[in-house]
């Protein structure tokens, strides 16, 4: 199936199986107890609607090691947003559990921040840029002097120190998403979840923002789960890529991105290894779209 030479095979987890209530299922990378910062176990979400239940996520199991930047790719409608909402405690899973630092997540945890795709709807339009970044800290009770410094640093980190008094709606889409990132950075979370944050910005801005995320990640040592449907983006950004199947969602494959840490839009993207990895992820996504079910395939094997 795969065209890669054996020594280049990036797959870390495809063959491993988990004993689950539903039988055996493919799982993502898992770590021994206590080593993972975030762990997702047998997560299932069925939306109850008037027309019956919609199974958005069937069964997901994976771990996020501390300090890693993991990308999650999956076809549209594969339950990526649902997964993030369950991880961030906004949505109660139908079955399974999410643990952060060993503690069960039942409501939004203190050390987690989320950046949503809809930047236009995630910033407070009645507050200026600075106030938007500052608000979570203010509510937390951080004192003014420290707050000012943290906010200044965050705005500078995203290159927005020149517009603190603008309202979000006066800014371009890319700049608004920068504000949302600055707010997350200022919040100083241990885990940062990003849900297709750049899907609605133009290509040039997008490249800039990708580099911004890598920079923030390396500077702050934060653990990032970055959701995207863009294959190139996932390979360029991640140190690991988790591929989701189509709905109802299970993990299709969990691969390691062994590109050098120092990434560059031109050089990295034109490197041999990048195109191999990209090719591999692309193939998997195609399989997912065609309805290949890793769970069914395993069951037959």
């Amino acid at each position, binding site marked *: 199936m795969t065209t890669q030479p054996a020594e280049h095979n990036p797959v870390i987890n495809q063959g491993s199986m988990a004993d689950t209530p539903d039988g055996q299922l493919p799982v993502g990378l898992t770590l021994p107890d206590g080593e993972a910062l975030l762990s997702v176990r047998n997560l299932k979400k069925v939306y109850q609607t008037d027309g019956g239940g919609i199974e958005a996520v069937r069964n997901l199991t994976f771990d996020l090691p501390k300090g890693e930047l993991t990308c999650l790719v999956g076809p549209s409608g594969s339950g990526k947003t649902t997964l993030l*909402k369950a991880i*961030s*405690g*906004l949505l109660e899973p139908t079955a399974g559990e999410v643990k952060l630092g060993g503690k069960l997540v039942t*409501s*939004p945890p*203190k050390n*987690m*921040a*989320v950046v*949503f795709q*809809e930047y236009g*709807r*995630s910033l*407070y*339009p*009645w*507050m200026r840029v600075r106030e938007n970044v500052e*608000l*979570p800290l203010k*509510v*937390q009770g951080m004192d003014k002097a420290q707050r000012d410094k943290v906010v200044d640093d965050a705005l500078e980190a995203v290159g927005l120190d020149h517009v603190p008094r603008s*309202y979000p*709606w*006066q800014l371009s889409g890319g700049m608004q998403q920068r504000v949302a990132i600055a*707010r997350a950075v200022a*919040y100083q979370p241990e885990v940062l979840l990003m849900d297709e944050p750049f899907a609605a910005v133009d290509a040039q801005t997008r490249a800039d923002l990708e580099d911004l995320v890598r920079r923030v990640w390396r500077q702050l040592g934060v653990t990032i789960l970055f959701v995207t449907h863009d294959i190139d983006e996932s390979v360029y950004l991640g140190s690991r890529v988790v591929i989701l199947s189509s709905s109802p969602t299970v993990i299709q494959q969990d691969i390691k991105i062994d590109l050098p840490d120092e990434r560059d839009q031109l050089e990295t993207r034109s490197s041999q290894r990048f195109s191999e990895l990209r090719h591999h992820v692309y193939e998997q996504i195609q399989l997912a779209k065609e309805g290949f079910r890793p769970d069914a395939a395993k069951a037959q094997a």
Partner: protein
Amino acid sequence: MRFLKDFFHIIALPALLIVAWIVWSSQSTSFFVPTLEQMSNAFSSTWTWNRMQSDVFPSVARLIAGLVLSIVIGIVVGLLVGSFRWLRQLMEPTMEFFRAIPPTVLIPVFMLLIGIGDDMKIAVIVLGAVWPILLNTIEGVRSMDEVLSDTSHTYRIDGIARIRYLILPSAMPQIMAGIRQSLSIALILMVISEMFASSAGLGYTIIQFQRSFAIPEMWSGIVVLGLIGVIMSFIFQIVERSVLKWYHGQREMENAG
């Protein structure tokens, strides 16, 4: 230049109406249509400082008290009802029932229950003016943007902070629209509440003039009422513009883009 143009726009229609009235009244022989001269005489002789103190200021004070109470009750109850689904389901039929009752028919009942003092008149104003604010606040809270709500949850902006920084400002455009409607209702009810068992007040004075066929004086009272209405809506506009600066700015941006 811009200012002059705005000023001209504001003043043009009133000026035209006054001119039309002067022309019409100067030819009219009707007892009920006073001339400009009669009117201005009546105005200056009627609305003396004494009368302002005895009849206008108390009315305006009740109007303001009624409005402030309506705004506070409307927003507080609206926030509660809008936030909890079960409360909404519990309250909706009852609210519809009370809203359907014209506050004026309750005046006799109120007179028995609360007496004929200021309390009764303020209660009548509140009973009519609170509904637009209450219903708009509920709607404003309910139409909260889901992403913004999720964002606030993830940053743990909960409890009082959630009301203060998220719910209240996001419902503010609707709340303001409700208050705007309440202004005119409150003014009408201020007048009506003084028509029963009253011995002072703007509404009372106008009715007295009418009953004693003091027609120019009656008209001058109506002009005073109109002026109060204009001043009220002018103040409201200034407040609204500053409170909802972000909202108008955003809307302008969306329309332009």
